[in-house]
């Protein structure tokens, strides 16, 4: 469960990105975060995996106050949170397999467990056959699926995505969405910032709309609600 109580974020340059956020996201929910550019969606996402600290307010992840977590303990907090980005952030000189395995090595998983789990994840995202391809040999959609496999390989309770379909054509975007829905169905909480009107209005989920750093709308089975 993710809870935010009266959260403010002011960046070093004085920009007020979030201005009093109160929200509660339950286990196994699927949430879209929508809003105009610069509204604070990415900041909202970054606070969840503690890339940024709130200037004011409390953020609880499964009851743990992330602001209080010591710096050296943050990695352990992050092991329960998979993160996906618009630009995939794959390592270019590693194959699909190695990119996913890297996430397991980084958390010191024993070698003998890595192979099976990585193959399992590549199978889930439909890239078992392409495991030896480099990112440059994969389409954007395939790269994003590798990055989702990497985010999920350590079996986190949360998957957080910042515009995961932002660089993809509609067909590839839908592939990604079915995958996220599948992951969500298996019990992982999914929070996704997006600009994709068609997706939000078709695959109906909870919608949280942010404008100028405040939540202006929060609906189950919500709509996108903007014209862009």
């Amino acid at each position, binding site marked *: 469960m993710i809870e935010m109580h009266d959260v403010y974020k002011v960046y070093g340059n004085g920009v007020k990105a979030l201005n009093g956020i109160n929200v509660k996201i339950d286990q196994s929910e699927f949430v879209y975060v929508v809003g105009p550019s610069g509204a604070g969606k990415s900041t909202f996402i970054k606070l969840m*995996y503690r890339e940024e600290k709130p200037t004011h307010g409390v953020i609880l992840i499964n009851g743990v106050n992330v602001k209080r977590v010591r*710096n*050296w303990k*943050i*990695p*352990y*907090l*992050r*092991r329960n949170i*998979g*993160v996906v980005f618009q630009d995939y*952030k794959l*390592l270019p000189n590693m194959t699909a397999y190695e990119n996913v395995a*890297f*996430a397991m*090595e*980084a*958390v*010191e998983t*024993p*070698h003998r467990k890595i192979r099976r789990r990585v193959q399992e994840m590549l199978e889930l995202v439909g890239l078992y056959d392409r495991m030896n391809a480099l990112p440059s040999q994969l389409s954007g959609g395939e790269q994003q699926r590798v990055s989702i496999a*990497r*985010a999920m390989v*350590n079996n986190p309770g949360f998957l957080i995505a910042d515009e995961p379909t932002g660089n993809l054509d509609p067909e590839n975007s839908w592939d990604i969405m079915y995958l996220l829905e599948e992951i969500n169905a298996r019990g992982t909480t999914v929070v996704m910032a997006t600009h994709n009107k068609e997706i939000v209005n078709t695959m109906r989920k909870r919608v949280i709309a942010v404008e100028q750093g405040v939540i202006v709308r929060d609906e189950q089975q919500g709509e996108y609600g903007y014209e862009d």
Partner: protein
Amino acid sequence: MKIDTLFRHTREAFRSLTRNTWMTFAASSAVAVTLLIFGFFLVFAFNISYMATELDKQVAVRAFFQPNVTDDDIDQVIAQIKKDPAVAKVKFVSKEDGLRQMKENWGDDESFFRGLEKGNPLPDGLVIQAKDPQKTKALSDSLDKYSQISDKSYGEGVTNNILGISEWVRNAVFIFGLGLAILAAFLISNTIKLTIFARRREIEIMRLVGASNWFIRWPFFIEGSIIGVLGAIIPTAVTLVSYNAVLGILNADGAYSLFKLLPMWPLSMYVAGITTILGILIGVWGSMISVRRFLKV
């Protein structure tokens, strides 16, 4: 740390060392120069302290009896001196012994002393060693109370001079060496900086998926230590080879046997060990500087 992880860190470290060959070379060279100076200093310091203790062992009071003392007087004085708890050893040197020693010291010019055996002008004497060589002077002063002793002397100053010089050299080398070590650490930190830069995406992803800070740091520490070890090899070899040469020259020419130098073993082991450890310390220090600056969480 798991053995898998250790292998992985070491592999990563070697990978970036070979990727940035020139920086690796520059950084290890800087370490090498630092350690070369340090190595010579180390050999010097070891020998100085060895010489000082050797000389200390030789430092003794030489006391000479009045010409007219009897054997009883001598026995009595020896017994008295032996009672002093500060005394380690008392050796009687008869006038005949004294003459023989003098002849030996003069070697070929021995003829000069021929015939002196009859009317030997030397007095009987004692060689007295203090338990603590530093207290030799006090021991010498304490002999004043014996009227049977006419004269005495000890090797004042020699030890102090040697220790004084070595301290001066030590300080000079320390300051110079510290400067060089800082330079070397700085160069290493720059090498590591390149590595961090080349791997910033990997690091970003490692942090994203929850790699511990130590997991991220280790390869850089290993990289720094390897640079340190690489930088230690040449200076260790140069120091030991030149020392071996110096030993060869001194031993070949008996005239210099006055300087008693330490043998190659175990000195070479100490020098190699200490130099390598220092190399590693400089390496880790250098990597810590850049890791701390770049991996702030």
